[in-house]
């Protein structure tokens, strides 16, 4: 199955924590492709994709972070209005719930990438493929 690996880190919501994470990776030369944070009052979940996810995972584990790897569905669309809506519409038609989603654009590309976690990944991938949507694998990033 074509899926994109993402790292998730549980983090208390207080000053200094995000620095500790980014610095731990930065000083080892790890480059971020994406990074987003789901925040609550007391804690957040930092989700990111690094150029080298395996090494990033190892570094964070050794530093004592609570870190896990999640597989997301990645979709490539043209970087133009309504492109995201079209993908979301397909999900809605198939009555598939999106748990979370974010998107980004890489420099020198005319396309936008959408990453999402859904309840039933297998079913969603099959549906999107059938509809001719271009799916990303980790390598394409």
């Amino acid at each position, binding site marked *: 199955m074509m899926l994109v690996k993402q790292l*998730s880190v549980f983090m208390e919501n207080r000053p200094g924590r995000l620095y500790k994470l980014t610095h731990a990776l930065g000083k080892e030369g790890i480059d971020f492709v994406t990074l987003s944070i789901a925040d*609550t009052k007391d*804690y957040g979940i930092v*989700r990111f994709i690094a150029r080298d996810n395996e090494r990033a995972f190892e570094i964070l584990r050794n530093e*004592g*972070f*609570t870190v896990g790897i*999640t597989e997301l569905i990645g979709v490539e669309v043209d970087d133009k209005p309504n492109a995201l809506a079209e993908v979301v519409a397909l999900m809605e038609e198939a009555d598939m719930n999106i748990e979370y989603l974010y998107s980004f654009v890489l420099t020198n590309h005319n396309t936008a990438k959408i990453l999402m976690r859904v309840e039933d990944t297998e079913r969603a991938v099959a549906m999107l493929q059938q509809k001719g949507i271009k799916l990303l694998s980790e390598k394409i990033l």
Partner: protein
Amino acid sequence: MSKVKDYIYRPEYECMTRSEMENLQSERLRKTVELVYNNCKPYRAKMDACKLKPSDIRSVSDLSKLPFTVKHDLREAYPFGFYSSPQSDIVEIHASSGTTGKLTVVGYTQNDVDVWSEVAARSLAMTGVTKDSIVHVAYGYGLFTGGLGAHYGAQKIGASTVPASAGNTIRQLTLLRDFGATHLCCTPSYAIYLGTEIQKAGMNIEDFSLVGGAFGAEPWTYQMRDELERLLHIDALDIYGLSEISGPGVAMECMQKCGSHVQEDHFIPEIIDPVTLEPLPFGSEGELVFTTITKTGQPLIRYRTRDLCTLSAGTCACGRTTVKMSKVKGRSDDMLIIRGVNVFPSQIEAAIMNVAGVSPHYMIYVDRVNNLDVMEIDIELDGNLSPDRVSDVESIKKKVETEVNSYIGVGAKIKLCESGTIRRSEGKAVRVIDRRS
């Protein structure tokens, strides 16, 4: 000016001379020792182990020969193993939380309920409750002895009793005002909370008829009294008790407001050194120990309360001659009292251990916010988890909350922390930070 008229409910006991009291105590102690030796297996075993026979106990001066009883003993005998009367004579059962989630059970015969009503009535008389009074009881009714204890006392006097029980502040205030309650019984922190809510509810304290109240089930300071009296325009007195001994009314402050009179004709108080267990003279601070001498269901011999205080003798300006105990200054164990509920850190630990996804590293913080006790438990998320969705973390948090609440009967705010961030202690673990005083 004070509106409370302190009167002595039972002068024939409350104003006895020292020698009369000691004679009465000696006679009742002999009967009690006889009763427990012959009817309560754990006591017979304890006395046999010390090679003591009931006949060795002739007077109160022999009290220190007897072995102590601790909460653990009661738990070992859970639920009914400490009865000295047959089950058929037990008419009421109360229970308080124990150290590992097991309840400490107390069975009362009709005689014991009468004793309890009597001491509670004497206590309420100190805050001026008469048959013309309206007593609003906002302690919880149930296994906890607060509600029924105050209730029995007010009933014994013949006052109109309003069994409001705990919770629903607006309703409490409305009842207090509309029924013209003269007396309030609840925890001091809740009373202060009620006081601060009066204005917010758009009410005026001038429309209330309160004159006094008996407040207990948790330790409180003289500063809290000042605030409570200012807010509610009453005289606020401290009522002391514990279910193992009876319930509220074991001791009660008179209007002199310096120390609580122990109902010595029912409960003999001692102060011991909690380390050496040696009895200490009046005036020394130590652990309070009680021997019940009139109860028949579950009498207790030299029960260690774990409350630290001092005792003093002499005739009080109110006319009573019974021994007085100071305010409780602390505990000789790690028990916390949260909104009137006894909580042991070990119970919280046991609750946490039941939840998958958290580590056994935790810290308990207790604060007083707007005069209410608030507990927060910081606990580490298991470092091997890989939470990706907020709901993954929230479901663990919810499980901890539910488990803690069902173990200790009081809610706590749960804060999940990163693995390795709770301070590891070297030596004796510091698990509780109480920031209330």
